[in-house]
């Protein structure tokens, strides 16, 4: 994919990225990013961009944000050594426990940050989209916390497979609006949220949940999620005595992965993003955007997308609703093009197996999304014995129980314990 950049451009862009110079003033990460939005939303995006500039790094905002992260979200989240996985894999495995953050995933870091921003911008209400429901739950909770009404757009397919989260959002005071158009998953939910925003661009704040979309969202979400990588870096030095040799995170839109990777870009650490390989390599069988996609414009951003030869965006498949998206954040497109981050895939079955292995070995029920990162980490560990690994454990798997109960427990306890009824 380096062919997307001119000769010599890759190194310069990577250095700019490490220096914190990207995105540029036009919202570009090299060739990727930008702002492709309907004219009605242009003034709203300009106001948002101005608001981000004014508040995000302001001392007063940061004091509020850091206090909420500490006292309400429960940060810093733990860095957990995984002794039994380490033994099985022949490696030293560390887990960054975003599953322990309030509401059960990294999504809350972004949601509370943007909710605080929305409050400062003086909007009347907040809308959000959700795939797995984790961002919807985080948004509902964050809006309740700051006192703003919240409506969450969610694809009808996702409503069915993530039912517990729908109930949680409603109990947290949000209105959940089913989206019946398009593919009825995350992409359709974003389209519908944008349609809603167009009806009242000045009164609505759109709380986008991933590092995707038009500028300044990929930047804003990265800044709010970078706490994952910053904490991990300090905790690895303190607890493991050194930085990891490799770090792994799952990639759908790419918010937890950019949050983990961005603060580590300048270090000598192999960074590996893992996309959903679904059931196979064919168009429509997976959500492996970076692995199999091509450049195009989707939902506000020039990035890598899954599309046919006519530029029609393709439907995706993944067992995990949170990775089931046809695009990816533009900064990941650049990190792939520069060669700094490697993007691999993990299939539905492999993810299920990895989820079970982690449950059994470490007593952690991880999210189906997160399980994809473990698949690649395990393979890497087997090829690189004795190395130190960091895995972004982006969320917990309680929300996946309706999906998981469809599959029998397959891994017998390999160390001789009882195995009642499995």
């Amino acid at each position, binding site marked *: 994919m380096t062919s997307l950049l001119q000769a010599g451009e890759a190194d310069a862009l990577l250095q700019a990225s490490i220096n914190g110079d990207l995105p540029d003033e036009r919202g570009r990460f090299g060739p990727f990013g930008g*702002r*492709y939005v309907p004219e009605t939303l*242009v003034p709203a995006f300009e106001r948002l961009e101005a608001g981000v500039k004014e508040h995000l790094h302001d001392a007063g905002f940061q004091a509020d944000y850091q206090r909420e992260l500490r006292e309400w979200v429960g940060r810093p989240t733990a860095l957990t050594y995984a002794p039994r996985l380490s033994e099985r894999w022949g490696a030293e495995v560390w887990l960054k426990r975003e599953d322990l953050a309030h509401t059960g995933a990294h999504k809350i870091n972004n949601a509370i940050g943007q909710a605080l921003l929305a409050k400062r911008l003086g909007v009347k209400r907040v809308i959000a989209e959700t795939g797995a429901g984790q961002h919807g739950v985080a948004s509902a909770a964050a809006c309740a916390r700051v006192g703003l009404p919240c409506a969450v757009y969610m694809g009808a397919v996702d409503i069915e497979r993530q039912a517990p989260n729908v109930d949680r959002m409603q109990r947290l005071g949000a209105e959940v609006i089913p989206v019946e158009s398009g593919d009825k998953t995350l992409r359709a939910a974003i389209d519908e949220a944008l*349609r809603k925003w*167009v009806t009242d*661009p000045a009164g609505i704040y759109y709380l986008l949940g991933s590092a995707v979309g038009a500028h300044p969202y990929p930047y804003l979400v990265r800044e709010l999620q970078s706490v994952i990588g910053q904490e991990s870096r300090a905790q690895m030095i303190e607890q493991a005595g050194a930085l990891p040799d490799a770090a792994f995170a799952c990639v759908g839109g790419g918010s937890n992965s950019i949050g983990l990777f961005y603060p580590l870009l300048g270090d000598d650490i192999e960074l590996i993003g893992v996309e959903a390989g679904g059931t196979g390599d064919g168009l429509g069988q997976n959500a492996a955007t970076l692995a199999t996609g091509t450049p195009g414009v*989707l939902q506000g951003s020039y990035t890598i997308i899954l599309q046919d030869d*006519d*530029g029609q965006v393709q439907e995706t498949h993944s067992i995990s609703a949170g990775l089931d998206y046809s695009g990816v954040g533009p900064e990941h497109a650049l990190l792939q093009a520069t060669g700094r981050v490697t993007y691999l895939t993990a299939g539905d079955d492999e993810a299920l197996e990895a989820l079970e292995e982690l449950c059994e070995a470490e007593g952690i029920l991880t999210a189906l999304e997160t399980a994809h990162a473990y698949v690649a980490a395990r393979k890497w560990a087997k090829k690189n014995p004795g190395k130190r690994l960091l895995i972004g454990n982006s969320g917990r798997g309680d929300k996946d129980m309706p999906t998981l109960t469809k599959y029998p427990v397959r891994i017998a306890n390999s160390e001789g314990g009882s195995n009642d009824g499995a």
Partner: protein
Amino acid sequence: MTAHERISAAIHAANDDGRTALVPFITAGYPEPGGFVSTLNTIATAGDVVEIGIPFSDPMADGMTIQRSSFEALKKGVSLAWIFDELEKAGGFGVPLVMMSYLNPLLAFGYDKLAERALETGVCGFIVPDLPFEESDEIRSALEAQGLGLIQLVTPATPDARLKMLCDASRGFVYAVTITGITGGDVGLPKDLASYLDKVSSMSTTPVCAGFGIREAADVAAVGKHASGAIVGSALVEVLERGEDPTAFLSSLR
């Protein structure tokens, strides 16, 4: 006369006749791909400029009607290449054609080839609803090199300075979106429509056509007092969807 000048000329000609220019919109190949050319022929007799919608998988500025027509047309295999081929075979409709397309299908087609095929098939201009002016350099220069127009949209949310800039940049006509919302609205036109359209018209040297939410003769009349033309989209697509006669509907708007 360049292609985009043909669009403006057709609108001026209608106004000189004492009429509000009528710009009917259809989604290409909906409800049936087989009826595309005959439908175009029919509406071209009633319209001064005809707008052809290119179906897209993510029509984020469109309401339910255009979404439905777009998804259905895609399902039946309609593509930009097919549309150009059909237009070429038909050999002209006697009115300037404009295409309404989201950016990605145009990007995938290639801008130079797009300009070439447009010139060959009577397409004079493009409306790209997810392309703000700031991102439009590349496609605009490819189109303008061939005399084709990139039609800019303005909305009630557009600040005055930006409005002036967009009016100056627009070719063919200025597309004045009547409402703050998506296509296919049925809540009626806003009360302050007249002053908004007067403002756009006073700033623009190219004719101004109003669109979104225009469904009946009263809407066309209301718009016509303050703009040069009226664009009718979702209401016409619904007529075609119900299998009714588009000629009768379009004449009823006069």
